[in-house]
């Protein structure tokens, strides 16, 4: 997030797009509800499914999955055409306006409504005018923006809109991606990415290479960007990748196109899985290493607003389970490294040198202070919101972006759109939540949400077990007949191994950031013959 959670009361209104906040980031969802319902703040929601927040929205757009860019362009078209954008901000803080304006010309409300499958084109200009009045408006998004082949462009479009509205670099504004896992932010900051060292310092850069060779006391670090997760599995089936070391990941459940993932794991020469349970993925391992859960460890995590917080050991390790950092160190030292970490804090001290944005953060400080990176020195208070007087690149770049359709369109064989996500009571691959008694009892099995119109066309009743298939596979799953998804769109949570949504999803990737298109693929639903 460019801005902070505690700024929610400072916003005049919110645009929530591609985020079912009250289920996936519930505590923030409640804060937004409190602002809107109890304090008169305004709300615009864009989502293919009716979600809790859309019930309270001043404007709601139920778009077809994969058409975020079109509607964002539609809002911007109106802002420019009617001269409602923040001219001072655009002139002094950004570049690229002319090209953007040119691209936006064709995104008239009618054109956008056509792409997005909306029957309320007249609401697009109304909502755009409404947004222009909200000073400031905060934009929140989640995987409903990013999990598309056009995900990267979707992200850039949200930034375009907020720059045009002058909502960047002010408290209560900003572009705020909601991170789905407790330390995704930190894992990215720490360089658990194939293209960058800690703090997003590119690996394909001689200076960075030299810097890390010196810091780590090694030579010959590779300057060749590595493989992303989905690419790893392609390289495994292709034979280039021979061994995989997995720590706390469950790709059999979480990655698109499950059958392909399993094939890839089987073709490896050596698979190590380090986890807390014998997960669906661990079944394919050659070695399984038992690790500690979050309550058994110490260390730091970084939340969605860049805030670094301490984890404390609540329980002793279970059985012979060990800390992940200990296990990695043991393997490294057996391979010739001479690492001498005695506790997480020793590692954190090294992180401070490797990661300029964390340099001023210490274990002592985060026990008492609320610190958000960047925090370059120990006397720096941290950064509540980014881009205050200038963007990291200087001027903010407005990028002209055209709508592009999802990788897989519907056709007569697969006439419906499948979109996937999470539900309130469960989490990701279910490894944790489905092993928590109360959560598992609350929602013990998977389901597919089908619009009641579609259900009656197919003669499907609520609770009936049906078959859902895509070009990649087929599963049996209970139908939940509701009016939440848009007609012709079905929704399925991916937490349930018995009816794994990722048997169906497509492994098409965004060419730039390699995110898979979980949010849209073509599917068909069928009644199962009795």
């Amino acid at each position, binding site marked *: 997030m460019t801005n902070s959670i505690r700024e929610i009361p400072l916003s005049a209104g919110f645009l929530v797009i591609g985020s079912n906040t009250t289920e996936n980031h*519930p505590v923030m969802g409640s804060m937004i509800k409190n602002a809107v319902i109890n304090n008169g703040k305004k709300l615009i929601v864009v989502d293919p499914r009716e979600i809790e927040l859309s019930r309270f929205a001043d404007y709601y757009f139920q778009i077809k999955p994969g058409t975020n860019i079109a509607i964002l362009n539609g809002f911007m078209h109106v802002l420019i055409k009617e001269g409602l954008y923040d001219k001072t901000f655009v002139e002094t803080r950004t570049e690229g306006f002319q090209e953007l304006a040119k691209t936006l010309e064709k995104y008239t409300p009618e054109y956008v409504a056509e792409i997005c499958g909306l029957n309320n084109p007249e609401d697009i200009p109304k909502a755009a005018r409404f947004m222009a009045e909200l000073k400031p408006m905060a934009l929140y998004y989640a995987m409903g923006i990013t999990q598309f082949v056009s995900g990267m462009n979707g992200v850039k479009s949200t930034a375009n809109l907020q720059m045009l509205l002058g909502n960047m670099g002010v408290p209560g504004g900003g572009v705020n991606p909601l991170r789905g896992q407790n330390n995704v932010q*930190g894992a990215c900051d720490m360089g658990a990415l194939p293209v960058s060292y800690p703090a997003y310092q590119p690996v394909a850069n001689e200076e960075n290479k030299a810097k890390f060779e010196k810091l780590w006391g090694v030579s010959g670090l590779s300057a060749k960007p590595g493989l992303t997760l989905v690419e790893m599995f392609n390289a495994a089936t292709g034979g280039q990748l021979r061994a995989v070391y997995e720590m706390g990941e469950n790709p059999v459940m979480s990655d698109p196109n499950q059958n392909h993932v399993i094939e890839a794991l089987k073709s490896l020469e050596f698979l190590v899985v380090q986890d807390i349970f014998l997960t669906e993925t661990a079944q394919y391992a050659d070695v399984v290493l038992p690790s500690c859960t979050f309550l058994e460890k110490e260390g730091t995590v970084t939340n969605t607003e860049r*805030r670094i917080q301490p*984890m404390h050991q609540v329980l002793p390790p279970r059985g012979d389970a060990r800390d992940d950092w200990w296990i990695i160190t043991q393997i490294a030292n057996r391979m010739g490294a001479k690492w001498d970490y005695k506790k997480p804090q020793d590692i*954190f001290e090294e992180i401070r040198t490797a990661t300029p944005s964390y340099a001023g953060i210490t274990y002592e400080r985060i026990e008492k202070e609320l610190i958000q990176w960047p925090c370059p020195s120990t006397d720096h208070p941290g950064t509540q919101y980014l881009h205050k007087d200038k963007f990291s690149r200087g001027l903010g770049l407005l990028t002209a972006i055209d709508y592009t359709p999802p990788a897989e369109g519907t056709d007569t064989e697969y006439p419906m759109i499948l979109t996937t996500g999470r539900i309130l009571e469960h989490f990701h691959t279910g490894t944790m939540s489905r092993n928590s008694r109360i959560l598992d009892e609350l929602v013990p099995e998977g389901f597919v949400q089908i619009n009641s119109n579609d259900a009656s066309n197919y003669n499907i009743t609520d609770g009936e077990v049906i078959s859902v298939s895509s070009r990649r596979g087929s599963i049996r799953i209970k139908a939940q007949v509701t009016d939440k998804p848009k007609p012709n769109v079905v929704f399925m949570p991916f937490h349930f191994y018995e009816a794994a949504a990722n048997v169906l999803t497509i492994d098409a990737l965004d060419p730039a950031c390699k995110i898979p298109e979980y949010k849209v693929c073509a599917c068909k639903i069928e009644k199962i013959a009795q």
Partner: protein
Amino acid sequence: MEEITLLIDGREVKGKQGQTVIEVARENGINIPSLCYHPSVSKTGACRICLVRVNNRMLRPSCVEPAIDGMTVVTEDEDIVSMRKWILELLLSDGDHNCLYCDADGDCELQSLVKRYGVQEPRKEEPKRGRTIDNESSRGIKRNEYRCILCQRCVKACREIQVSNVWGFSERGFETRLIADDDQKIGESNCVMCGQCVQVCPTGALTYQTVLGRGANWELTKESSICIYCGVGCKIDFYKNREGILVKALGNYEGPNNGHLCVKGRFGFDFVQSPKRLSKPLIKRNGTFEEATWDEALDLVAGKFAEIKAKNGPDSIAALSSAKCTNEENYLMQKFMRAVIGTNNVDHCARL
């Protein structure tokens, strides 16, 4: 905000314009009792247990009384004590407060006030209210209306913090009752089990399903950590009993969550103590997993990585790091892959 000075119990204390008397007092370590007041929700000013004497004259409820520069406050005198006793006796007689079988025993604001003011017994003449006991309908929450003192904290927590508006009051004749939705059982209402109403309830009227049989409140110890689920990063106080079993999770007020949690943070922690947890390294031999020692497993892993690296080059090895692990662990994983294996093949599920 402008600083103000008050004289509370003869002590000069500082506060800020806009605070109430109870807020200034508590910030200065002076403990005025309260029941309906809770710092996380809006003020009700109904129970009157917080009465104090202002400027040597009137008795005022300190939770709603604005603190004014130069104000003199007495938090306890003979009149106040007898008022408080009277209120407590009424509250006791109005319900059924048998602490012996109450989950809140030892962690109840009513109980501690009864002890603090030496209340011996309830007023006998008051009629007992007929109330609901519902220990079954919700997976997470129990309610015993005999212990409800109608303080409204739960109503406000659900309205202002969770914003699901489940709790409300119904008036039937002379009886005011706390009801969920249109008088539904809590498990059948629109409750999303965030558990916030339980966290703020001062008595045992609302309690967690997870606590029964897991030790008395005074045997529990707590430690804070950060929720393992989503990226909000809620700070949680975890309570465990003498046997080390987790009992409950309360939202910490210093985290980004301001004390609030969702159903996952509140009730999703027992996987940690599941019997299905892995507790020994496993090595697959002839298709089945066999338990191994750490030395065996680690030697095998390091040996295999070295062998594959020598044979196929460093880029033939890849690692998946984890968004559920700490910064320190993620840092080490990428360092291991880059500095020891010699490849940039390291990623995690940021995109999933």
